[in-house]
């Protein structure tokens, strides 16, 4: 073995280098002083689910209360009651949509299984509170977030979703009115490229450029 004590001295040199380095080298002092400084969240970041609405926070909800997410949710944190009209006929709208974010484990499976692009992941993370049921059990109106907000936090993904919805709407319209076979906008062709589940590159579709491109009202694709 080499001279005893060299290993210790080598280590001391290394710590001294780090001590000095932490004053000038941003690679070494990586700490962010949180409330004042903030990291920009990556686009894929996720915290807890939210419900997307178009235009109106209640009527515009894309959710149709199909309860697929409730069924598939691994920790069973979603609770949905379908709305009924005066005569007791079920409506495609959640009367109650509760999500217990103290149970939710942010796994995103509800987002994946939702056929209506209605439930998406929020990125808001400053949720600590001492009010277990008031603030951690989120109700429908707490969960409802506008499509514009969705575009703000997940721009690429939201653009794809909008393109897909527009495409589906156009298809539905085409089916409904076979005579008027020509859709008015060039959206479908561009959106088709984005529609398959391989977003290899962020697709710039016209729909992406105008965030609230008014996609189909939520219930319609299923009805068609």
């Amino acid at each position, binding site marked *: 073995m080499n001279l005893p*004590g060299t290993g210790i001295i080598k280590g001391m040199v290394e710590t001294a280098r780090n001590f000095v380095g932490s004053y000038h080298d941003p690679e070494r002092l990586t700490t962010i002083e949180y409330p004042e400084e903030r990291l920009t969240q990556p686009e*894929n*970041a996720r915290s807890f689910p939210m419900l997307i609405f178009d235009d109106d926070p209640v009527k515009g909800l894309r959710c149709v209360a199909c309860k697929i997410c409730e069924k598939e*949710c691994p920790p069973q944190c979603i609770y949905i009651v379908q709305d009924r009209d005066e005569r007791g006929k079920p409506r495609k709208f959640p009367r109650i949509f509760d999500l217990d974010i103290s149970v939710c484990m942010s796994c995103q499976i509800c987002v*994946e*299984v939702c056929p209506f692009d209605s439930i998406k992941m929020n990125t808001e993370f400053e949720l600590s509170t001492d009010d277990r049921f008031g603030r951690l059990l989120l109700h429908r109106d707490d969960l409802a977030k506008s499509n514009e907000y969705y575009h703000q936090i997940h721009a690429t993904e939201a653009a794809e979703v909008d393109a897909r919805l527009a495409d589906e709407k156009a298809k539905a319209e085409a089916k409904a009115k076979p005579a008027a076979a020509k859709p008015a906008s060039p959206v479908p062709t561009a959106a088709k490229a984005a529609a398959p589940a391989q977003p290899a590159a962020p697709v710039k579709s016209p729909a992406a450029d105008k965030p609230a491109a008014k996609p189909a009202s939520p219930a319609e694709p299923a009805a068609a």
Partner: protein
Amino acid sequence: MRPDSAEPDLSALSTGDLVVESPAAVPAPPPPATSGFELTPKPATAPDADRGLLEVAIGPHHPSTHGVFRLNAVLDGERIVRFKPVFGYLHRNHEKIGENGTYLSAMPYTDRLDYFCSLSNNWAYALAVEKLAGLAVPERADYIRIITAELTRIQNHAALIGFLLQELGAMGTPLMYAFREREKILDLFEALTGARMMCNYLRFGGCRCDLPAGWLEECRRVVEGLPRFFDEFENLLSTNEILMARTQGIGVLPPELAVSAGVTGPMLRASGVNYDLRKVDRYGLYDRFEFRVPLGEHGDVYDRYMVRILEMRESAKILQQALREVPGGPIVDPKVKLRNFRPKAGEAYGRLESPKGELGFYLISDGSTNPYRYRIRPPSFINLTILEDMCQGLTLQDALVILGAVDIVMGEVDR
């Protein structure tokens, strides 16, 4: 409680009642179990007190037990006479949860097994399901899996060495260096999967989403910086006399015992057994990459430490190769249904080389959407089998270092 045993009698579950019921009877008979077999009586501890031995419960709350874990140590001075692990403080019956849910819904729970390496856990589970259902994985997805798994390995080993040095009393400096690098890798995970630790990224037959724009470049940058970090780490630690004195010749595990005890991962290879599932099973696309498997000779804690260091370097090599040539194409088998996924009735055992050892998933399907049997082979749990053998006759200080070098995460041990 079985449904046939009428009302659940809560009082029988409280330990207070048991004390009342067993009066002065010298060898208290074990409480009659409902199913008619008895608990083996625990080994008596009375002679220890006579011999002047000290029985110390290390844990459940102890800084070196990596979570809630207890080690019942019987000490003679500071020498270990007995060293019995007590598990279950973090037991949540993960396997039952898995059997109660669909195949997909077990995936996010695998993140929580070994919460340091959620991506390799995901892969192990996906591998088992793919084996069960005979699914193929697109090439691009396999590349992504390898990249994420090797990044996971690096950050796990780095953090582990940090923790090991913490156990050796190094005031957290190596740990902080490890965490500094780990943060960079976790940032990559966050950009890719949306979460830093609970990634829940893989799906049966591929991955959940494609690489975001610019991710590969960022990843290349991080991987390029890794060798510098390894050098720094080694300068700080590898030849440190105190570290060598503390770890060499400590916790020696002979290869025969290691094989018999089912020890896997870096611990097995530190004992000199050449068994790396990346080479043996050739799952994923590992045979496309050139890497070597470091082997120890003495099977002591220092070898375990060095094998991990060298493995990190090899992982960085794999990453460099993989990042050079990520192919295009789909990332998930489009035929695989997300919902109503029903593999044919049968069983499969899928395993891979997780950073801690062989992580296996044993699945029995009865043709329904839920697995009939969902079993995890937790490497760190099985690696603990021979903990007492390794610690025999050493001091308490050594024992905790040996425990640290086993690399346990209680989320996986207790499941």
